[in-house]
């Protein structure tokens, strides 16, 4: 046991004494989160919108004035048919369309409820969601004004339609994606490189010739990176809660437990890579090419999976990060418990077990 | 007296407050085999890098093959050859590809490269293996080939950094035959080695200790001076007092 602890301590020395490793470990996630954060909190000004006014009555006019007065929007023109709107969206001329149904004022005053439809171009999900938020608040404003002059309660409900990206993958969806990306990258890259480094330096030879169990060599390599990844995860979560106002609706404990699972998966992958490579560069290249690209492509946080051709969707199922992404989204955003994610968890456990078995089987107790 | 091809005057290199090479002064004559010896960390590598134009001295003067070490490093590089134990040839290129590549780097025309490579291959007896990857050749052949490539452009001086490390005794001697041949053609040889018998093959040798040239003379004069039977003893006498031990 003492041997094991000494080994783990040595690994920590390696990490803390190498500025590049430290940067990779902590700089990368902080940079990612902050970058996304700032990219997302930018205010949007003078976005081109159209008004599609089937009502052309008092209330619709007044809301249109309010929209026009806001410096967030600039009204392009008034279109009439849905088809025209569709074409304008496709041509990229407009970002948002506001549709007032016929009898808007009548409904509002007599039925005490009326509907406005907001159609946003969500190909850029962040802009889309921000614009609908702006529009909704302007409509609420108007509703307040009307309420003050009337005695009866009335309400305008906004019906929001997101075009091209109905699930609206935006700020809240980026955080789980970045979590998956960072955990995968850091764990796989760091473990594989640190093991291969020992091979390159020749210290692996000495380690193997010692009575220390070779499997413990691997295990003690994994421990520091496991611990550091958990710290990393905490940093990401703190940043996203306090900097990006991203809520954690579900159980934090469950979130950490599921993340630990992904870390183990990644460590197993890193081990597998280190087994089959002899130089740090190869290990790094394999980790980056083999992981960064699939994680970005197939997790679904950058490119919607459901729009992909079938073969790619099948491949996506093999990417551990995809399942982790679903799990984290369910916990953080939807606030769901374990009962709703047991299937994904099981898949991830299966993958991890498989990777662990393969990499331990492939692990060489000798050279060459 | 023969033409001076390397003239170093009070050549100094400082790294912070550490003086790696301290006022090195010596001349090397054309066609000479000049042994450059020293213990680990004595400053050999630093001095050699300055002479090859790879590193700018902190102070002092040096003229290499007629060119100034500060201003004309590009001309220096065209007129010298370099071979080290660690890097010499590309293992994943064939013999002929290596020759063509290095010939091309030194600005030889295609015709020259063709002529010279034919002579070289003949001389080294490599006819059967010109299309083989260098990595698959025995170490001895590689060493000889890389030396020949280093002198392909007929430089005035060739710098050899421990060219025979780990090579078997027969190949080591064949290698020195090549050195002698090049020297006979008038090429100046500047060589470092850990083998003390090889120090004997040099016309003159210099011994660096702690960044300073401690001794410089012909092997026989040095042996006389230190009342030693072999160069090994001379080296030991000189290096024993070294205070500095770094690489």
């Amino acid at each position, binding site marked *: 046991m003492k041997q094991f602890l000494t080994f783990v301590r040595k690994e920590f020395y390696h990490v803390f004494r190498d500025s590049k490793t430290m940067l990779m470990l902590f700089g990368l996630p902080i940079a990612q989160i902050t970058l996304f954060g700032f990219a997302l909190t930018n205010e949007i000004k003078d976005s081109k919108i159209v008004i599609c006014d089937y009502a052309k009555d008092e209330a619709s006019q007044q809301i249109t004035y309010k929209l026009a007065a806001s410096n967030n929007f600039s009204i392009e023109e008034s279109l009439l048919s849905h088809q025209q709107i569709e074409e304008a969206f496709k041509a990229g001329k407009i970002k948002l369309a506001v549709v007032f149904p016929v009898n808007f004022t009548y409904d509002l005053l007599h039925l005490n409820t009326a509907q406005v439809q907001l159609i946003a171009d969500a190909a850029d999900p962040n802009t889309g969601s921000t614009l609908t938020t702006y529009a909704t608040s302007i409509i609420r404003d108007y509703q307040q004004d009307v309420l003050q002059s009337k005695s009866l309660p009335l309400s305008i409900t906004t019906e929001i339609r997101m075009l091209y990206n109905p699930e609206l993958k935006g700020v809240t969806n980026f955080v789980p994606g970045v979590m998956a990306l960072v955990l995968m990258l850091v764990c796989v890259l760091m473990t594989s490189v640190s093991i291969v480094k020992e091979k390159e*330096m*020749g210290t692996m030879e000495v380690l*193997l010739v010692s009575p220390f169990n070779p499997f413990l060599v691997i295990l003690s390599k994994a421990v520091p990176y496991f611990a550091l990844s958990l710290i990393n995860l905490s940093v990401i979560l703190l940043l996203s809660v306090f900097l990006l106002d991203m809520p954690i609706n579900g159980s934090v404990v469950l979130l950490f437990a599921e993340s630990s699972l992904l870390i183990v998966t990644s460590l197993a992958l890193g081990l597998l890579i280190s087994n089959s490579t002899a130089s740090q560069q190869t290990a790094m290249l394999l980790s980056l090419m083999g992981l960064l690209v699939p994680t970005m492509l197939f997790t679904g946080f950058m490119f919607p999976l459901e729009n992909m051709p079938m073969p790619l969707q099948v491949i996506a199922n093999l990417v551990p990060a995809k399942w982790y992404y679903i799990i984290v989204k369910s916990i953080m955003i939807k606030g769901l418990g374990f009962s709703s994610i047991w299937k994904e968890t099981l898949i991830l456990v299966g993958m991890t077990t498989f990777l662990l078995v393969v990499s331990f089987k492939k692990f060489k107790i000798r050279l060459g | 007296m023969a033409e001076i091809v390397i003239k170093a005057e009070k050549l100094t290199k400082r790294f912070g407050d550490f003086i790696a090479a301290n006022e090195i002064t010596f001349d090397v004559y054309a066609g000479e085999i000049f042994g450059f010896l020293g*213990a680990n960390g004595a400053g050999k590598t630093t001095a050699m890098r300055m002479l090859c134009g790879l590193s700018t001295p902190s102070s002092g003067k040096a003229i290499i093959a007629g060119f100034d070490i500060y201003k004309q490093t590009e001309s220096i590089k065209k007129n010298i050859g370099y071979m080290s134990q660690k890097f010499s040839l590309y293992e994943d290129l064939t013999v002929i590809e290596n020759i063509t590549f290095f010939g091309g780097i030194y600005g030889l025309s295609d015709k020259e490269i063709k002529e010279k490579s034919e002579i070289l291959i003949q001389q080294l007896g490599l006819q059967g293996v010109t299309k083989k990857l260098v990595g698959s050749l025995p170490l001895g052949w590689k060493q000889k080939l890389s030396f020949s490539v280093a002198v392909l452009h007929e430089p005035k001086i060739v710098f050899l950094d421990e060219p025979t*490390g780990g090579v078997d*005794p027969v190949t080591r*001697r064949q290698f020195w035959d090549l050195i002698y041949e090049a020297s006979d053609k008038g090429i100046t040889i500047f060589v470092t080695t850990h083998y003390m018998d090889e120090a004997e093959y040099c016309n003159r040798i210099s011994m660096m200790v702690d960044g300073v040239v401690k001794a410089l003379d012909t092997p026989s004069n040095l042996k006389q001076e230190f009342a030693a039977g072999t160069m090994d003893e001379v080296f*030991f006498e000189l290096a024993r007092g070294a205070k500095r031990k770094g690489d």
Partner: protein
Amino acid sequence: MHDVVLDKIRKTYNKNSLVAVDNVSLSVNKGELFGLIGPDGAGKTSIFRILTTLLLPDGGNASVSGYDVVKDYKIIRNHVGYMPGRFSLYQDLSVEENLNFFATLFGTTIKENYDLIKEIYVQIEPFKTRRAGKLSGGMKQKLALCCALIHRPTVLFLDEPTTGVDTVSRKEFWEMLKRLKSQGITIMVSTPYMDEATLCERIALIQSGKILSINTPANVIAQFPQNLFAIKSTNMSGLLKDLRDFGNIESCNAFGEYHHITLSDESDATQHELKTYLESKQHENIVLQSTTPTIEDCFIQLMNNQDGGNSN
């Protein structure tokens, strides 16, 4: 009692296309300082790796302290000390941290075996807080030796411990080995430097995976089949060429200050004839004398013999 035994060990790489170790058999006695002498690529490292259980041989048997290198690898790993060719230290750990790490790795402490490494360690102790990467070659070598000794191994394997280290450090290192030997540790050491052979009790000369000779250094020299002559003149490189053109020359090699030659006819008449011949070639101050062969002479002779044998 043998501490290390190799019996017809064979090791090939690249799907048998490269034979690194070719039916090597040798044994090292308990407490012996045994040298494996040969150039790079002779198969020294492969032999060391087989003995330290890092590589599986393709054929033959080998044992260390009586334990089979394949079956009993775990036991062997407990008892041997190994210093690989490159000084395998953690460059980013300090001298003390390295030593502590390796001590713990072998389940011991520095204190427990301090007496064994004391003499070597005191030389690097002033630098104990320095990172290993910042040490000189000589000091790295000493630290690596301390690390290999810290668990008091019964057999010590040192693969080219003196390569890339200057003469002074090399001399010091061999002194250390002698002292370790006196403590009863069996030491097997490899080196490409032929002059180090005489510092061993017994040596095996190895070339291209084959053993050329196994004996004490004195016996290897005694077995040199002919008289060896040393010859010099004022023009040494010219002398070498002219000697090769002389009819009775069998072998002719540059050897530092002198060239070493063997003659097919060693009579005084031939020697005289040689001198006259050289004088006719304008050589001055010719010295021709009998000399004792060095290990390197023997190595060259055995190598040429083997090559001759192969081509026949």
